[in-house]
């Protein structure tokens, strides 16, 4: 080994011991600079090459390259070890208590009646019905006359209905929309609405002077009670679950003939009992005729139900007043509930 090679060996050893002593990534970088950088010890050896006799140059060059590789290899290995240790330390220091509460920006909640309404809109839209609205402060003629109420029907009494004037009432049902639609739209038509209705009633757990209703109707050729039952079935199954069946019971409403009360039952709900949801039937021919619709050619169905009744049944809400009282302790609970409820 000549002196130059000895010198290289010494530099390598020096680098190795420096690496051995290094404990931080920063030190590793300094060592890299000192030995392998542009003016680093080992790189500097290469500059001597020019001064060597031609025949010694290959061996010397090989020795310098060997040394470079040796140091680089040791350095990389050492750097990896140190980095690993440093990361381990960092991770330990930065560890958090994941059981501490999360941090959130403010969030608003939707009202359960709105959630229910959206669901109704989704389902009836899917069945081909178009959403429409009528006024809450309704003309007497749309609320009663147009719906085939006889002129002295008890529902027209002041003690049952809020009158604003002789010819304006707070609508007692959303069915009044029918007349408005029939006036401007010829059959075939499929329409539904969800809206607020009013009755002059004493307020208790199951009664309120203000509540909400769905009203849905269609007029086309050949519309039958079977179509009504099928539509109600599809609607009720979408709202309450796939096991739901629908039952019709004869009932009387001035605006339908035949008129029925419809009930649903499901093995998963209310112990399989029949639970009445609302009124339905074929639109009374007097109404169709009033709007010039040929009852020999067309027939129609209509059904209605209370919106509040849906969450009351699905979630067991036992006080109707809660819905319009807006205590957020009540309303916020529905944020976690799937709208479909028990289905």
């Amino acid at each position, binding site marked *: 080994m000549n002196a130059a090679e000895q010198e290289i060996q010494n530099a390598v050893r020096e680098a190795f011991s420096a690496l051995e002593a290094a404990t931080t990534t920063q030190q590793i970088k300094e060592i890299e600079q000192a030995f392998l950088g542009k003016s680093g010890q080992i790189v500097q050896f290469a500059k001597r090459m020019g001064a060597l006799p031609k025949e010694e140059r290959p061996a010397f060059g090989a020795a310098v390259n060997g040394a470079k590789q040796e140091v680089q290899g040791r350095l990389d290995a050492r750097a990896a070890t140190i980095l690993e240790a440093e990361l381990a330390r960092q991770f330990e220091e930065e560890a958090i208590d994941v059981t*501490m509460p999360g941090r959130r920006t*403010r969030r*608003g909640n939707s009202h359960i009646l709105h959630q229910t309404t959206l669901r109704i809109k989704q389902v009836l839209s899917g069945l081909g019905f178009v959403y429409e609205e009528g*006024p809450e402060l309704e003309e007497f003629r749309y609320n009663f006359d147009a719906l085939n109420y006889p002129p002295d029907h008890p529902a027209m009494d002041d003690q049952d209905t*809020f009158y604003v004037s002789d010819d304006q009432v707070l609508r007692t049902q959303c069915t009044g929309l029918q007349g408005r639609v029939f006036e401007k739209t010829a059959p075939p038509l499929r329409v539904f609405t969800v809206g607020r209705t009013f009755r002059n009633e004493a307020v208790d757990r199951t009664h309120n002077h203000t509540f909400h209703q769905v009203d849905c109707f269609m007029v086309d050729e050949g519309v039958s009670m079977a179509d009504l039952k099928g539509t109600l079935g599809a609607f009720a199954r979408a709202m309450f679950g796939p096991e739901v069946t629908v039952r*019709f019971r*004869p009932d009387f409403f001035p605006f339908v003939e035949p008129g029925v009360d419809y009930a649903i039952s499901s093995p998963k709900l209310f112990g399989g009992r029949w639970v009445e949801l609302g009124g339905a039937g074929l639109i009374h021919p007097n109404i169709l005729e009033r709007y010039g619709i040929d009852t020999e050619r067309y027939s129609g169905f209509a059904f209605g139900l209370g919106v509040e009744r849906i969450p009351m049944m699905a979630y067991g809400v036992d006080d109707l007043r809660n819905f319009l009282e807006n205590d*957020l302790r009540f309303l916020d609970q529905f944020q976690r509930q799937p709208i479909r409820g028990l289905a």
Partner: protein
Amino acid sequence: MKISYSLLKTLVNTSLTAEALGDLLTMAGFELEEIETVNGAPVLDIKVMSNRGDGLSAFGLAREILAKDGSSTPTDLYRRAAAHFADVSLPVGPAFEVRIETPSCSRFSAMRIENVTNGPSPDWLSEALLQIGQRPISVLVDLTNYVMLELGQPLHAFDADRLGDTIVVREARDGEKLTTLNGTEHTLAAGQLMICDAVRPVGVAGVMGGLDTEVHEGTHRIVLESAHFLNRTVRKTRKQLGLNTEASYRFERSVDPNGVVSAQRRFAELLLAIQPSAQVFEATDLYRLPASDLSISLRLIRASRLLGMSISVEEAARYFTALGFSIQIEGEQLAVTLPSWRPDIVREEDLVEELGRIHGYEQIPETLPSGTSVLGGVWGRYAATDRLIEAAISAGYSQVINHSLQGTSPLDAAAERVGPRNPSSPDLAFLRNGLLSGMAVTARLNGGRDVHLAEVGRVFTAGKESVHLCLVSNGDLHVPDRASETPPKADFFSLKADILDIFLAVGIELDLAAGSRDPRFHPGRQARLTRNGQEIGVIGEIHPTVANELGLAPRTLAAEVSLDAIFAEGDAELPLKSFARFPAVRRDIALLVSKAVPFAEIEGRLRRSIGPLLERLWLFDVFVGTGIPAGSHSLGIALVMRKPDGSFTDEEANQLRDAAVAELAELGATMR
């Protein structure tokens, strides 16, 4: 109506239990509400539809059972009732004068009965009444009630000795007096329908008898009234007099005019069985307007199509016959003659319902409507309204839904209010003319502070119904946490940003305009909300005095916007812009300017001056204090500029900035 199982069984031979009969009646339209057990025997409580007065008797319900259930058969009593008890033959007695002086009475029959005693009823009769919760009174009164339960025809027994020899059915004269047998003295008014003797009213027709002529312990002779009155007149009279009886309940719905004498005969038969010595004479019956036989033709093909199930001619014939209709079959068509007890049936569709009801609605299959379908869905303004409330919820506002009917509030809008003319309480006296008043109540209910609420709903002023959106915001903008123990508070500007963003979510750009003078708000912290220059709402800090009065924490912000103008606009376009990929430059300016100069003015001048190259502008600092003269403030404004076709040089950017700042000199603004 309560009806005992045993009473039904006197008319129907059936093996069905009370529960099964209840279900059967329910599916016929006579809903079973409950079954009670009274003295060990079942009693059904049946809800009878308002158009089916014929169901308000054991006989009427028996008819439905027999039509609906092939296994039940009529009893002998049922057959005799159906034949109007024509087999009860009675002697003709001395003439009795009956005059009907009103079109509201179509039939009046008076039966004389003599040599009776009016003691307690026999056990079977007392028990029959006790079972359905009626108190037995005396045999004559109890028999009238029993026959009404059985046949549906109200009867009234007058003490013949206290009644003159004449009965006149007429309308009362103003000021006439009558004390009814419940002890109430009524002053009568013209138009009220009365049973009178030759001089005075002795009973309210179809409602209640008079006290004077009531049967009593010493009664030996009676006149038994059975009659038919127009339901509208009975209803009007009993409402005006504040009376409500089993009799009026039936007359208001419907009573079979052809059953009038039949009920008297049944009464006579039962009385003679109890008191064989009684002397009963054939009734004096004045039937002025006999029910006419109406016939309607029914096309079975149409019936099957409407019901969605097919019913054969034979089945239809059987159902109608069982219900007491008479029919003639003409091919696929039936000529159906209506019985006198079914005034509810007036057209073919009513007969279709009868068929469906008796055949059974459970037989109807489920089909979905075929035919022309339109595009279903929620469109236009209704979709926009839903998206607006969703945007408000996303912005952190909890949705509430308040009552339309309210009392008064200092937060009511200025517009004229309307309200029901018959409010049951001052809290329901008005329809809201804005959402804010109700929102304030809800905010207070939820603590009055740190609440952020949104509502979309209808509001009412004279002659107009509108849809509004309202936000109320108070206190911490988010819940305190480790990162910010005192979170930022809601203020005018947090609400301003939110209301503008919420409308932007449906493509609507709102503007604010200063100069609002709404007494509900802090005079220095309110603005009009405008759309295309038209005022459509208001935003501000609720006046501290009002907030205090309403139990709201200080610094409660509110905004309310009418959606009417927006709905009227029609569809908006979404203007997509191309965007440049060259780098932007930012220049900040610090302006010293009088507080009296609105920021909007400064912003407007900067935007006009720099033009489309100004990509963003924002106010990052408002400073007052050391070095700032009183009445002025220092505004730090950031300008971000970008060219579509290249990069800015420093010089170009500075030039644009300096030119813009020069525009502000007129406002008295200087660079700091």
